């Protein structure tokens, strides 16, 4: 395979990797505010994609209207999930939290199957489908859309966490929950907000990936797993690390699929996950000292 072939693989790796990164950011936000790993994170992605597909396909709405509606709907689902299932718990154990988010993911998956059946759907591309050629390799305009959206989401998040009061309150919660509540941060609301925010980010990921990856009710699990691998590789709770790690995993995965065996493509992220957990649980960008302080 020539250089352009490799470049082609890297492009497709970057595309899919950016989605993993976005899913990973969703994990990080909830983890930072609550210490919970939300096993239902991948389902937010699936729901975002599926709702968007229904709005565009069945309801025949234009993309630019469907997009915010789909994101809002998933945000609402995330918020409801927190209010109904996480909020009422008194001193839950980690095991309880794991099972609850797994149960929620089963429920979302079941709901999706109920609503859309088992068929696979796809979404029209946001603009033309004619590939753009770069250095002998080609990329789809949708890839440009995806990277553009990632950049916007990351910038918005950076602004939100650095410059807004609510964002600062969320960071305070992440640093020290009891201290945050002492200085008047309403921790309960922050937790709600973190679920809503990561649901929204998940939905965006699902929507922008839908045109190039098919969507069905079962798609969330594998996206969630790979997103989690990226989150761990980037250092759990570190959104910037998550995006970088997402790209890395995407590229390695694409290279593995293209050069070695497509059978084992899905194993790449998992092997990375296990390797990081076994060798360096703090991830590429986390300090060992800090990870020891976390509740693992």
């Amino acid at each position: 395979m020539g250089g352009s072939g490799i470049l082609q693989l890297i492009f497709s790796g970057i595309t899919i990797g950016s989605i993993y990164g976005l899913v990973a950011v969703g994990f990080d936000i909830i983890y930072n505010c609550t210490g919970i790993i939300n096993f239902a994170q991948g389902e937010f992605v699936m729901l975002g994609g599926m709702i968007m597909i229904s709005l565009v396909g069945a309801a025949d709405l234009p993309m630019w209207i469907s997009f915010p509606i789909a994101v809002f709907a998933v945000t609402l689902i995330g918020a409801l999930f927190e209010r109904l299932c996480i909020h009422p718990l008194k001193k839950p154990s980690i095991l309880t939290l794991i099972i609850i988010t797994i149960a929620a993911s089963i429920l979302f998956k079941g709901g999706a199957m109920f609503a859309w059946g088992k068929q696979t759907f796809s979404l029209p591309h946001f603009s033309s489908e004619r590939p753009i050629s770069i250095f002998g390799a080609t990329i789809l305009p949708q890839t440009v859309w995806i990277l553009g959206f990632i950049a916007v989401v990351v910038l918005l998040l950076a602004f939100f966490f650095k410059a807004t009061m609510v964002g600062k309150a969320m960071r305070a919660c992440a640093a020290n929950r009891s201290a945050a509540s002492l200085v008047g941060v309403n921790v309960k609301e922050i937790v709600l907000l973190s679920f809503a925010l990561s649901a929204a980010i998940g939905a965006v990921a699902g929507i922008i990936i839908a045109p190039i990856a098919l969507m069905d009710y079962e798609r969330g699990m594998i996206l969630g797993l790979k997103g989690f691998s990226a989150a761990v590789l980037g250092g759990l709770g570190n959104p910037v690390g998550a995006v970088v790690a997402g790209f890395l995993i995407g590229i390695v995965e694409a290279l593995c699929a293209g050069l070695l065996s497509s059978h084992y493509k899905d194993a790449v992220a998992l092997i990375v996950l296990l390797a990081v957990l076994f060798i360096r649980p703090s991830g590429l960008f986390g300090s060992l000292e800090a990870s020891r302080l976390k509740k693992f």
Partner: protein
Amino acid sequence: MGAKNRISLGVLVGGLVLLPLFMRNPYYIGVMVFIGLYSLITIGLSLLMGYAGQISLGHAAFFATGAYTSGILTTKAGFAPVPAFFTAILLTACVAFLIGIPTLRLKGHYLAMATLGFGQIVYIILNASVEFTGGPSGFGEIPRIQLGSILIESQISRYCLVWSLVILVLIFSLNLINSRVGRALRSIHGSELAANAMGVNTSKHKIQVFVLSAIYASMAGSLYAHFVTFISPSSFDLKFSILVVTMVVVGGMSSVWGALVGTFLLGLLPELLRNFRDYDILVYGFVLLLIMVFTPEGLIGLIDRLKGAQEKRSLKAQAKLS
């Protein structure tokens, strides 16, 4: 073992003996066979989760190792089913030991994700290594088990075999729980720090119980392969791992009896939900969520709590009378 356990065990054995006398329909006996297979796995998981406090979302992998080892050895290497059964146990124990050493150093969410990742990798291997496993379409013609002159083919013979094994495993596990090793396990769940300070080698005991639970799952896998005579990866996916964890949690992690209650309930649920067809996972998710939010200690815990409340009430009533 304690009087309470002995009575429960007696009731269980009595029920199991009487059941086939009243329930002649082989279909329902078949359902009971599957509940027995699940029970083997959930008893082990209950030791791991409820007693040692460690979660595993990858037990489908050990179920698969048992099934595929038995299947491959009997169809391709000329083994008889019984030696294959024990070879599978040995192999699964080795796999569990090797994967357990790095994995069980992790805690909480990390442990859950690592075991989940391991389970998925095994699932991918089952699909991908076509020459050994037949790939996604699996392989068949696995021989049935021959015990002396009896061929385990009818539903009732399977029922007897699997439930005898469940009872043995149950007695073994109950003995273990109320012993030096069992207390050491439970102490890890209570406070790992203090357990260590009392001289309990926590990592060793965690690995021991992890391997034991893997062995139980391997037994179930081997029996499954020889009962159904055909295996394919779809029986060993993440859904399976989650289902067995769910059974343990729904019943209640605080005792192996909880695991059995949960296994019966969730094993029968598909029969009750037949009208829902595929949508049963909706009901699963809902039931699981309700139980975790309102009674995280499971049904056994709920019963204990209700009993406690009733006792309090009757004590109050007595106090009023006097």
